[in-house]
């Protein structure tokens, strides 16, 4: 697969409008609170996509950073200061710091080893929150988070929270989009394709991988801090090891390695996980079977599928005149 510098044409502004309009459109159907939750999950899915889709490192412990962000923000509000914006910054910073520390070790590995080590650290984090730090984190019960009002920015009110999260989502989207089409983004995509060659060219891949890991962790921390503010509540479920499969599923079904894919996947997963358990009792089994189908038959995901269809249509238009070197592509 050739690496393109930027998405063929930059429909930047239209993309933003479409995302915002999409979320606004589903709001009347699904209630504001739920859609806010969806958007937070989408931020999380995008941070995972940066790690898995773009750098090709599958993590099964990304919930650790979400949980760290949630606890960072929640504890800051509870013990130090009620300012929600500062709390979000603290959440991001704590998750980022954790990423910096763990990244030093984790980034050395690849493949399934990377996935399992992340999972192991997530396990440790969950355990730490649950019992040794019980005095601070209130263990299994969790604790309430009530942020103070900040002028007109009253995050307790649902429409304002909705707007705020949408803004965060668009900012993250814009940031990641710029990042991925920058030279740095090309570097991490090359690491996915063939790390040895990148190293041959004289680049320090370790540094780039570490940086990406920290970035993905920080963005997941943002999602965690927003979760804490949205629910006004933090408990160890924010760091649950078994929830990791959700974001992997979202990323794969939407199409890994594309931000729109991550958004579609995030919304799809949230709709499935919110409404399906009402009708189907054996919900984990459904998830398992759909993951199997995706790995065997549907690797490109929804977005990749539509992209393929679109490319076919475009190809049919130019059929008739032979493409020079077209055979070489086969």
């Amino acid at each position, binding site marked *: 697969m050739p690496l393109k510098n930027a998405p063929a044409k930059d429909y930047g502004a239209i993309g933003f409008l479409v995302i915002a309009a999409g979320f606004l459109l589903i709001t009347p159907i699904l209630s504001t609170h739920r859609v806010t939750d969806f958007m937070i999950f989408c931020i999380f899915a995008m941070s995972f996509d940066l790690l898995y889709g773009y750098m090709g490192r599958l993590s099964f412990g990304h919930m650790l950073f979400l949980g760290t962000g949630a606890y960072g923000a929640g504890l800051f509000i509870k013990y130090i200061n009620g300012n929600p914006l500062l709390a979000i910054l603290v959440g991001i910073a704590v998750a980022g710091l954790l990423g910096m520390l763990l990244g030093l070790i984790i980034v050395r590995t690849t*493949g399934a*080893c990377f996935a*399992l080590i992340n999972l192991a650290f997530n*396990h440790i984090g969950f355990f*730490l929150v649950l*019992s040794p730090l019980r005095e601070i984190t209130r263990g299994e019960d969790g604790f309430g988070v009530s942020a103070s009002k900040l002028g007109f920015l009253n995050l307790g009110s649902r429409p304002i929270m909705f707007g705020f999260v949408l803004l965060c989502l668009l900012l993250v989207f814009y940031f990641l989009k710029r990042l991925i089409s920058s030279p740095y983004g090309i570097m991490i995509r090359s690491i996915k394709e063939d790390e040895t060659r990148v190293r041959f060219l004289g680049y320090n891949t370790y540094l780039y991988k570490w940086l990406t890991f920290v970035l993905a962790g920080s963005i997941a921390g943002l999602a965690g801090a927003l979760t804490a503010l949205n629910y006004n509540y933090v408990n160890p479920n924010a760091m649950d090891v078994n929830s990791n499969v959700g974001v992997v599923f979202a990323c794969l079904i939407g199409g890994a390695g594309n931000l729109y894919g991550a958004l579609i996947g995030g919304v799809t997963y949230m709709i499935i996980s919110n409404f399906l358990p009402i009708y189907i009792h054996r*919900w984990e089994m459904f*998830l398992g079977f759909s*993951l*199997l189908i995706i790995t065997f038959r549907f690797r490109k995901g929804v977005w990749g599928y539509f992209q393929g269809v679109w490319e076919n249509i475009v190809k049919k238009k130019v059929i008739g005149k032979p493409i020079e070197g077209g055979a070489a592509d086969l």
Partner: protein
Amino acid sequence: MIYTIVYGFSIGAILYFISIGLSLTFGTMRVINFAHTLTYTIGVYALITLVAFLQGYFVLAAILAVIIVIPISYVIERFIIRRLYGESLDYTFIATFAVSLIGVDVIKWIWGVNPYPMKDPIGEYLMFWGLSLPIYRILIVIIAILLFVALNFFFKKTIVGKIVVAALDDKDGVRCLGINVDKYFSIVFILGSALAALGGVLYAPISSIHPYMGLSILLLSFAVVIVGGMGNLKGTFLSAFALGMVMAITARYWSQGAETMVFIVMAIVLIFKPIDI
């Protein structure tokens, strides 16, 4: 102190049973088998049902439980793992994870989510020098050592074992000799799954039983495999017992932190010994 050593060795023995399958599957097939948690858990639940059914013949129930796992692991190998040869590790990981998700849900469907209590089938203590050591734990250690000897014999003296060891080293070389490697791989996979079930069956009476019990033990045995080296049989044996001791000694001073300490050891090993898989 002696009790701590016995405890450590028995945990190490269990970890050895489970990690040997993980190590072999990775070494030969390049597949990280998350479904290992599933075979382990199925073994345990089969044991529960059989012990109730046979009314206390623990040994017979244990053997039957291990045998039950064999066809299940064959099905997993035939329909999932075999399609994944040569794929990227991410997909094999996701697919086997999906299998374990389905399996755990089936277990919840059949047996429910509540933990089952189970008591030590021997329940007697060996007394000497004023110490009382549970015989069951000593028995586990003895079984592990016997198994190590048997596996060594299997890999050094039998033709199947030799082919597997050769395939660990160079798969294509073995295939060039006209040997159907896939057949031997499925034998290795089934062997590994049966050993995981054996570990589960032996560990069940001294641990708590619930559908998600496989996850933490898989993570521990994964740490064993990383410390011992992927596909390295002797290394797996040594690191299993070493980490078992780490767990026992930590548990003596800080009972909750035993598992965490294993991961810390693993992290330290990873800092000094980079592995590329």
